């Protein structure tokens, strides 16, 4: 099967991944110190590999600083990799950058990246030109997108008066102007209220149904669970797990989770809990005044009293037991010992 795109006839053979990252690496040089210049090298992405098939919605999940944005920026040709290679629709992101740019859309979260002094319509017109959308199609395309993101009636206003959510929706419209086959969405729902975020997830789901290939990064587990066909969890610049949301849940569904609410939990107690028989992992989450100790328990093990025993002298609140969620799988993955270190 051969697909075309209105930017030109672009045959893309089926059966080949649309996005392919192979051992991607990127390090940054940073300077610290005012007087004595110190140079430090940060390895933000260390050997990331994955394939995204046509029509797939692939999620990149990870804590702050894990290297998600860095990975995306290498794929959309804004950063040169310091190692490895990547291709999008068969075009190399370094050697063939312009061809890659023609066929991809990029949307990042937050309220920057718009011309404040122009109207929403003018912002879209400008980028339609930059992406070479044929003049005859522009008006209709822009109209459809404005409608789709729910900005109809406000499109003639200057962006400086737009709320965060309106800006984000405008960003989405901008990213779709040239009807790209592949979309890169970097935390698109950040800073949007729950209703707006749900609408946006609806939009993303619709795009997926239209057959777009999408790479999405997010911090929200339920978002990844709801939307993604496949998820890669990235931590410290490395992929630590990859699979469908169900696969990832599977890693922890055998067993259950014990949550202990504590006040003033010392790190040593957490270490002690980790060493208990039947405990797979333990992590701490701040919830207001309390620290909630989340303990992943091996199947068949009963650890509640052991855990409480090792919390001697700590103020303990509510104790509960529940089924594991994708979030637990995620927390376990990102809070485990770094790969390579002795367990």
């Amino acid at each position: 099967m051969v697909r075309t795109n209105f930017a030109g006839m672009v045959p893309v053979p089926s059966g080949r991944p649309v996005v392919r990252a192979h051992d991607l690496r990127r390090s940054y040089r940073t300077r610290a110190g005012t007087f004595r210049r110190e140079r430090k090298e940060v390895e933000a992405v260390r050997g990331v590999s994955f394939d995204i098939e046509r029509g797939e919605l692939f999620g990149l999940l990870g804590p702050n600083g894990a290297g998600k944005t860095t990975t995306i920026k290498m794929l959309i040709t804004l950063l040169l990799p310091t190692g490895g290679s990547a291709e999008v629709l068969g075009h190399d992101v370094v050697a063939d950058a312009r061809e890659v740019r023609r066929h991809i859309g990029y949307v990042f979260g937050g309220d920057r990246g718009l011309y404040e002094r122009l109207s929403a319509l003018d912002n879209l017109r400008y980028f339609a030109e930059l992406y070479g959308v044929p003049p005859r199609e522009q008006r209709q395309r822009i109209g459809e997108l404005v409608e789709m993101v729910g900005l109809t009636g406000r499109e003639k206003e200057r962006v400086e008066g737009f709320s965060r959510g309106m800006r984000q929706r405008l960003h989405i419209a901008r990213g779709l102007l040239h009807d790209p086959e592949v979309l890169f969405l970097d935390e698109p729902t950040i800073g949007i209220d729950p209703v707006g975020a749900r609408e946006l997830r609806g939009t993303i789901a619709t795009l997926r149904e239209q057959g777009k290939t999408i790479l999405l990064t997010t911090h929200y587990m339920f978002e990844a669970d709801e939307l993604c066909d496949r998820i890669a969890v990235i931590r410290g610049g490395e992929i630590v797990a990859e699979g469908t949301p169900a696969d990832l849940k599977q890693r922890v569904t055998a067993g259950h989770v014990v949550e202990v609410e504590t006040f003033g939990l010392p790190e040593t107690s957490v270490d002690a809990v980790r060493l208990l028989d039947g405990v797979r992992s333990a992590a701490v989450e701040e919830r207001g005044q309390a620290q909630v100790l989340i303990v992943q328990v091996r199947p068949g093990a009963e650890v509640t009293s052991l855990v409480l025993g090792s919390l001697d002298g700590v103020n303990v609140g509510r104790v509960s037991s529940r089924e594991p969620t994708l979030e637990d799988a995620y927390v376990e993955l990102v809070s485990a010992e770094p790969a390579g270190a002795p367990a």
Partner: protein
Amino acid sequence: MRVLRLVAVSYWLHLKMIAVSVFEGVFQVIWPIYFATVAFLLYGRSDEPGVLVYAGLGAAVMGIWSVVTTTASGLLQRERWLGTLELLVASPTRFALVLVPITTAMASLGLFSLVSTLLWAWLLFGITVPVASPLAFVVSILVSVFSVALLGFLLSVAVVRYRTAWAMGNLLEYPGWLLCGFLVPLTLFPSWVSWISYALPPTWGMQAIRASAHGESPWLDVVMCLLVGLVYGVVGALLSETVLRSARRHATLSLT
């Protein structure tokens, strides 16, 4: 065709943005008038009748140079602050084609100060500039605007690495006033300085504008002005690709 449309639309939208800004709009228009006033007051005591017309035209064109040197040098930095620099780079359009319409919009803003300086000269000092061949006059001005825009394009990519890029633009502004012969004839300079002058497009543009005002043929100067501008444009286009690659290597496109 597509390129023409792209250039026209981006030119128009950026002109809109620059004109909307109170700071850039009003400030850039008033600034040359201030210097024009000083020039008129100084030259006003001269007995030669042509001197005030000379100064009036010079002061009028000075605004084009000023607005471009001061705003083009901060162009990329402003786009970076807005967060749009990455989006411009991520688009399939060549960077030179993105930037030239923007610097052209900046240079066109100089037209406002040109007109207002001429009006000012007429209203307050009674100086009228007789224009012998209006068509040649307009063409000379438009070519000057475009050539200065190309110089601004080179400037915008040349200074992008420096934190204090905007200051470098300001540094260029004042020597340009002298070197381009806006207010004093080039013949006053030692010969090595006039070499620098002839490497700057406004020098030729200024000569073309004065020639067409006096009814002499401006065409050689017009062509030279355009050629010199195009040289800046080509160097800028080459440099912009290098600068972009370096920015992608060193991760300097975004602020985060």
